[in-house]
């Protein structure tokens, strides 16, 4: 009112710039992360990259000979197949955890403050127990002549031991079970701060419960869904432990392959190359997801 456009522009520009003292403050706050990342992540990663271009020595270690062989080897069908299988497993696992975990996180966020924190703890506490012991727990129940078999046979539903374990579905269930808390807590963190009044407003305007959910709630909780997907998808390509125990050593994921190359094959450069490709692969997946869901406003989330 009474201000020229130029004056108002200046004022707006002034409001947007932060005074120099403030900018220094933020710089300091972000430093720990920067330093930590550069020293303990970036530098080791450079080592990894370099390693992937070297040649393996005859029995152990590496020889300083540059080669592209390791990457060329990955193009062999047997290894590409491993990537494909792992990708499949990861996608199904992520979808599974999302389907099961989203409602859980959502319901958690709607509870009273005291119950919320209790739920958070209850969800995580089982995972403070050794994963090995938990897997044994499942094995004791589901193996042939295990507790489930005894129950089924006792009730007369089956007459011979079932062979449920040491199969692809068993590994899948194990993966979903192990990665569920990541999804649940991610969804919860995001849903917790949602402005429920927006949903109420939509309902007041005549939207059905479903429409309100899909247009409002899901969009607002998208950051949580994204971080949940990242925290589940990425490990599920490499989690060799569950594949070994619940899959009877029969399922070979990229993680198992790398483990194998390092141990039995003693081929460090090849293992390094596989890891680099795995990294690129997962990064690309995440990038595609960001593009597809148009999460531009979540800039810098990953």
């Amino acid at each position: 009112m009474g201000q020229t456009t130029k004056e108002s522009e200046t004022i707006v520009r002034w409001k947007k710039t932060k005074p120099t003292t403030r900018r220094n403050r933020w710089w300091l706050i972000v430093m720990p992360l920067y330093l930590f990342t550069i020293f303990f992540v970036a530098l080791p990663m450079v080592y990894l990259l370099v390693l992937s271009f070297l040649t393996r020595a005859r029995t152990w270690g590496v020889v300083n000979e540059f080669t592209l062989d390791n990457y060329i080897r990955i193009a062999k069908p047997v290894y590409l197949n491993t990537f494909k299988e792992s990708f499949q497993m990861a996608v199904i696992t992520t979808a599974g955890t999302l389907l099961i975990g989203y409602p859980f996180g959502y319901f958690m966020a709607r509870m009273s403050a005291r119950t919320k924190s209790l739920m958070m703890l209850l969800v995580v506490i089982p995972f403070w127990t050794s994963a090995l012991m938990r897997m044994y727990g499942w094995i004791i129940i589901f193996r042939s002549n295990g507790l489930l078999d005894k129950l089924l046979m006792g009730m007369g539903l089956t007459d011979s031991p079932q062979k449920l374990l040491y199969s692809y579905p068993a590994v899948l269930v194990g993966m979903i079970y192990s990665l569920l808390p990541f999804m649940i807590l991610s969804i919860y963190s995001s849903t917790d701060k949602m402005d429920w009044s927006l949903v109420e407003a939509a309902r007041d305007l005549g939207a059905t419960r479903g429409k309100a959910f899909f247009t409002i709630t899901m969009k607002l909780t998208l950051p949580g869904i994204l971080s949940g997907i990242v925290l589940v998808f990425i490990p599920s390509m490499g989690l060799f432990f569950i594949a070994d125990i619940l899959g009877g050593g029969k399922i070979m994921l990229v993680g198992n392959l790398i483990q194998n190359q390092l141990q039995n094959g003693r081929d460090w450069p090849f293992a390094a190359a596989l890891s680099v490709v795995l990294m690129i692969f997962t990064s690309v997946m995440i990038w595609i997801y960001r593009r597809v869901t148009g999460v531009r406003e979540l800039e810098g989330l990953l």
Partner: protein
Amino acid sequence: MRKTKGFFAVLMAMALVVVSLSGCKGSGGESEKKEKGDPGELNIYTWAEYVPQDVIDRFESETGIRVNYTNFEANEEMLAKLETSEGGEYDIIIASDYIIKIAAEEGLVKELDKEKIPNFKNIDPVFQNFFYDPENKLTVPYGPGIPLLVYDPSVVTCEITGYDSLWDASLKDNLALMDSERVVMGMTLKTMGESFNTEDLDVIRAAGNKLMELAPNVRVLSQNQTQDYLLSGEVSAAFLFTSQVVLALSQNPELEVVYPKEGLGFGVDAAFIPSKAPNSDNAHAFLNFILDGEMGAQIAQQTYYLCPNQASYEFLDEEFKKSLIISTDDVPNGEFIQDVGPEATSLHEEFWTEFKAALD
């Protein structure tokens, strides 16, 4: 708000407590200077519980030496750590034959001072002069074993006489094998009359193709406690290490053991002292300790491997002797699995990956 300030206060307090607690024990990783009269420490590095706790307790009480027992999961992890520490940090390492050979070649193994190990003479000569220590200057055998076939006669219909029998169609989805490519490929090579350690790429390829035919029969691949699958009825036949064989039979005496007609394998876990061990004298004392007749018996009866200690035989209790189906006479017939060079190893790797992909 008070709530968040309180939260941080608690966090800070916890952090302080925790830091001071960790400061107390002094686990910085440097070897401590020995005071006069202080017997010092011993750093043992091997799988957990592989050296029984009662053996360690007895050693500690008899010598006053403090034992630090840390663990690794795979031999290769051990070697990587040993390389990084350039032969230092650890005093006694117990690991598998093939890795000791590599460690020795890299100069990471110390030559034993036999004068500090008078009990060295107790070692049964059958367990000496192996490929990784041909002059017996570097190691003390700890856990020797021969893998065998074990099956449940009440379920298995075909006759099992050797590795080849495992390809029988009646064993569909009923077999447990070791999750080790060299062992399984090795087994296949034996059925073709070849050595475990052939470097002929064509032979290896032929073995790989034959292995694919075994895929439908395999139900489980496992490194550890494979006997559990046999005992619980998950599988009806299995290829087991000595300790697993002994445990299986002790819990189900009805199981049958088969010496594969194509030829036996053999493997040893042995103890050695790294080249720059910080407590070398204590290490020698420990080796002498476990080579004592009574101790040897105590160890063998808890690890369930063959007992390499002649002086222990009189201390082994009768039941244990009976359960030990393998006698030392079989040892010379066993072939070790040894390193075969990069091309052969890569080929083994590839077939193993394909094999696993074909399973399930």
